[in-house]
């Protein structure tokens, strides 16, 4: 398994932060979705981000992955790469994978074909036309499908999977992309309790070789992740720390946990 999910340069001594946001602001029609947001994710970290609806979680993801450009502020990947200069495809190829809130897989292709498309490699038109799969690549695909627990579904259409299975398939697609940083948006939404716990375990497993940022609402899931938590509110950081510490913070209780 480790051969699949290992990414290069991960433990390099000189890298201070995998992802660094400083003073990021973005407004839509005068509404500040993100307001002077600062965030520092170190290499190898597993970070949970929580916050009420409208706290700016999705906009933050959009800014990191190049879908939205911030009005001001710094967004740095691996200390020095300025992400605001790139678009989605560039950023994906730089090594940032994103899982959407709604499971987004290619429903008319099989599980195997979905993973094959996501598999790291050149993304040019010509290569895709002439592409021949090596046995090494085929092994990788099989390995990842096994990791996310979809082995028996390998040749089924992704559209026929259950909600939870689609979420796992999408996570598998992220892993074969070989990213250093994984952004996971509400992976437990709509899952059964059992599936939620399995997903938490899967993410912890993935975290052994990847930096992972998870946005989530489900408190049981956050507890199961057992990681540092950042609470967002009105576009900026309200509190940061261990879940026990954060949940004792009166401001946090007021805006989020109390409800």
């Amino acid at each position, binding site marked *: 398994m480790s051969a699949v999910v290992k990414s290069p340069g991960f433990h390099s001594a000189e890298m201070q932060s995998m992802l660094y946001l400083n003073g990021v602001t973005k407004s839509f029609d005068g509404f500040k979705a993100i307001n002077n947001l600062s965030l520092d994710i170190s290499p190898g970290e597993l970070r949970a981000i929580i916050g009420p609806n409208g706290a700016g979680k999705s906009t933050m993801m959009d800014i990191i992955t190049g879908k939205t450009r911030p009005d001001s502020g710094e967004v740095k990947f691996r200390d020095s790469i300025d992400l605001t200069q790139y678009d989605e*495809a560039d950023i994906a190829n730089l090594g940032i994978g994103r899982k959407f809130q709604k499971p987004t897989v290619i429903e008319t292709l099989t599980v195997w074909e979905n993973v094959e498309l996501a598999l790291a490699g050149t993304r040019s038109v010509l290569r895709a036309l002439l592409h021949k799969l090596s046995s090494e690549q085929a092994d990788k695909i099989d390995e990842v499908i096994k990791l996310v627990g979809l082995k028996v579904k390998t040749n089924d259409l992704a559209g026929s999977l259950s909600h939870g299975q689609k979420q796992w398939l999408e996570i598998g697609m992220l892993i074969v992309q070989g990213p250093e940083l994984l952004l996971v948006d509400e992976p437990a939404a709509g899952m059964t309790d059992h599936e939620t716990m399995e997903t938490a375990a899967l993410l912890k497993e993935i975290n052994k070789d990847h930096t992972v940022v998870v946005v989530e609402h489900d408190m049981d899931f956050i507890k199961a992740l057992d990681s540092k938590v950042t609470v967002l509110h009105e576009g900026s950081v309200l509190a940061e720390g261990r879940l026990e510490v954060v949940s004792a913070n009166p401001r946090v209780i007021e805006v989020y946990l109390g409800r």
Partner: protein
Amino acid sequence: MINKAIFERSAVGRLLLADKAGRYLITGLLAVMVVVPLCNLLMPAGSFLHIPTYIVVLLGKYLCYALLALALDLVWGYCGILSLGHGAFFALGGYAMGMHLMRQIGERGVYGNAELPDFMVFLNWTELPWYWYGFDNFFFAMFMVALVPAALAFVFGWLAFRSRVTGVYLSIITQAMTYALLLAFFRNDMGFGGNNGLTDFKDILGFSLQSDVTRCVLFALSALSVALAYILCRAIVSSKYGRVLVAIRDAESRTRFMGYRVEHFKLFVFVVSAILAGIAGALYVPQVGIINPGEFGPINSIEIVIWVAIGGRGTLFGAVIGAIAVNYAKTYFTGAFPEVWLFMLGALFVISTLYLPKGIVGVVNQMRERRAERDATSTPEQGAQS
């Protein structure tokens, strides 16, 4: 017969081995390519097996439409680009061919001017516009048949896909594109014959366009082109590239976040499709004997979409079946009840959208599945009875 082992080992063979409907389609195309000309040329006129020339021309026309439908299915069925302007690429290919045929007329025109086509003499032009240079040469003209639609598709696609124009907005600007070209080609000073277009063609490569043999050869070439284009399209959609197209169709932003440059993938398939449409136009013009700005009409482009929708989108052979079936119906009904054809076409589109979302091909597949299910359930009972 082709040696089976060789067939299975060749790239095309492997492709068709996984595509049963495609094998039938290609076999059928190759069969009509041989049989129809033979029945036209060799059978005596009174014979039961004789196919009159007008039918050969009509079938040739259907095949050109089938090629055009294939081109549209490639972009719409597999990449979700609903182009309502594919008629423009078809017409441009047709004009490039028409320009060559005009130059072939030489001094046999009404005005007997070897230097200028008749309509230019009529407009008191004294010399050939620069963009007509080179069209005397057959190979140059054939190159332009592919290049002109490809260039338009490239420029248009580059701008549209880079700006992420998708869905209904893209459809609308493709309509605008073909309408703009319609208006432009209507103008006499564009130098393409204005509203009369290009016509009065005499011969192609020295062979008279009126002769049955030439018509049969053009028919056979059309059938062959559809077969080759089908294989090309099948190769494209069966490759990893084709799966990326499907991914773009079903989840465009997911595909972007996987690191694929969606605009490049769209642009490539759009250009290939435009070239196929241009070739269809070039085959069409010598068979019908005229090309005029009417071919740029927005309705024409919408009709192509109806052919593909009725045949079955995203299947390739469905596009061929749809184009031939709808055009056959059109020939019949415009003859029998000319007033109702447009209503019928509209009704067909509504019915196919409501009740046959997967077109004729979808219905056939459904029936086959049901039969297979029935067979599967009834076989054990029969076994028990006997």
